[in-house]
């Protein structure tokens, strides 16, 4: 058997692994080759973006001074990791985001519950909530600083403000649309309103709640960054402002990239929690 044939055989074996019949093997091979081609293309696109960026900067097609470039960003990350600066700034942002998120999630849930509880209250506050929801909250930034002072509290306040209304609206709509027959079932069993809430409305809406939390965590991060733009001594938002001030655009780009990664990680944290908690779905 030639070398080439042997490689082909090994490859074939790998591609048809776990197949139950020959036909299934063919199918698996096709699907796996497709998957491989997709992953390869993804990596190629990513590599093309990174290398393209690097080369464009090197040959001054884009101004490397303004756009920075990958190797420089990696260098910046490396240097800032060494002296612990990077970790400090990331931690500040994560910390503020998580507090804003937790407050927004808890507050949103509590308020949505109250609105569900009292139809009267919910009807009274509906127009106010619609307006608050539509309001571009970051316009309130300067006002918020005045009310909440010039520190972490103002930043967390911004994160909270941006995230809580969405939570209220999403969760309350979910609560309101709980299947009436499920509630009827509990009523026929003699449940009171609180039991209905605890045993049906809340668990039934866990997917909705997690949907809201996934939006919420992203908005909390946005709020934190906006807050840090306005007032801060540390955090990724601070790095972006400072980097801009002194034209360390490497720092700005590095922060933006770390921020994107952070946004993804925080999202997956909530998604992971959801999987842990909603474990009965197929």
């Amino acid at each position, binding site marked *: 058997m030639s070398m080439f044939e042997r490689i082909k055989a090994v490859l074939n074996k790998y591609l048809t692994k776990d197949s139950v019949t020959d036909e299934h093997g063919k199918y698996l091979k096709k699907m796996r080759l497709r998957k491989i081609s997709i992953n390869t293309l993804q990596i190629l696109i990513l590599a093309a973006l990174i290398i393209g960026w690097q080369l464009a900067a090197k040959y*001054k097609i884009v*101004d490397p*001074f*303004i756009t920075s470039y990958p190797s420089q960003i990696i260098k910046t990350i490396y240097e800032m990791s060494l002296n612990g600066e990077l970790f400090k700034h990331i931690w500040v942002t994560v910390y503020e985001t998580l507090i804003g998120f937790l407050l927004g999630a808890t507050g949103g849930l509590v308020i949505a519950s109250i609105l569900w509880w009292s139809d009267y209250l919910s009807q009274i506050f509906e127009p106010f909530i619609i307006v608050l929801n539509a309001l571009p909250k970051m316009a309130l930034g*300067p006002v918020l*600083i*005045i009310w909440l*002072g*010039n*520190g972490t509290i103002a930043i967390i306040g911004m994160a909270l403000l941006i995230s809580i209304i969405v939570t209220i609206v999403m969760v309350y709509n979910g609560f309101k649309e709980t299947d009436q027959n499920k509630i009827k079932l509990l009523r026929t069993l003699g449940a009171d309103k609180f039991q209905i809430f605890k045993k049906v409305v809340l668990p039934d809406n866990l997917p909705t709640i997690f949907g809201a939390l996934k939006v919420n965590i992203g908005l909390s991060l946005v709020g934190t960054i906006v807050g840090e*733009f*306005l*007032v*801060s*001594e540390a955090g990724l938002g601070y790095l972006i*402002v*400072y980097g*801009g*001030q*002194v*034209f*360390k*655009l490497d720092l700005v780009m590095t922060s933006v990239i770390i921020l994107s990664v952070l946004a993804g990680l925080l999202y997956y944290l909530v998604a992971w929690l959801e999987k842990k908690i909603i474990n009965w779905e197929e």
Partner: protein
Amino acid sequence: ATEVRLNEVVHSIFYTPQYVALHKGFFKQEGLKVELSTAWGGDKAATALMSDHADIALIGPEPSIYIYQRGADNHPINFAQLTQKAGSFLLAREPMPDFMLEDLRGKKVIGNRPGGAPEMVMEYVLRHNGIEPFEDVQINTSLDFSANAPAFKNGLGDFVQLFEPKASKLEKMGAGYVVASFGELGGKVPYTAYMACKDYIADNPEVIQKFTNAVYRAQKWTYDHSAKEIAEVIKPSFSELEDDILVKVVKRYKGQNTWAHNPILSKSELDYWQDIIMEADELDKKVDYEVIVDTKFAEEAVKNTE
């Protein structure tokens, strides 16, 4: 008319001669159609320049220093100076006619964001008057430019560093009193200047010349007229501002000789400016005057107009 995209760092009475040039038609008379936009930040204005979204920017020279130092090829070159003094003031909660910088010892001052010109000037001035920033005096540098006046009004800090018209407004409200001017304390610095990228200047020397001519005419006009007259001319650019505040602010800036009398940016001034930045730890090595300043147009303008 040739179109020129001009980007100003902020929209401020601090740059009065520019609005004089606009409203008195000096640019137009030179055959230039100036499109003014506001960047709200020196970094953003310089970025606009670098990314070819503006032809000329009005900023402090420090971005041009940073940019050159960080290795950009087509870096900005300062060709006309507009202000020659720092524009910020120190305010206290009570009038302090006998204020001395010593009074700051142990107190809390609301400053500005690190790396920016106002903060660097204040730190330099304090240090050279025997008060070590962050040791002898607490400085809060965490606030955005838009937030420091309200924060002070709301009770934060003992002193605040502000630009006009905020200083005058606080005074009018009785919530703050100007006790010192960094313009006076800091001496002559090229606080703001017009700059354009190297390539643009090389390609459009006549535009730069016309622009500089107009600026110089405006500087002279401003120098020759009273605060009230100036205020009337620039009013369209500050329609939201009360008239009395406008006049007061113009008077204050004029009074401390804020605006350069001609657009020539001297070597000694730049040297001094670089000292300030170096002390703030944002610059390792001075940049050559000839590299980031070109006084040819300014000199020509002065010569032409005489």
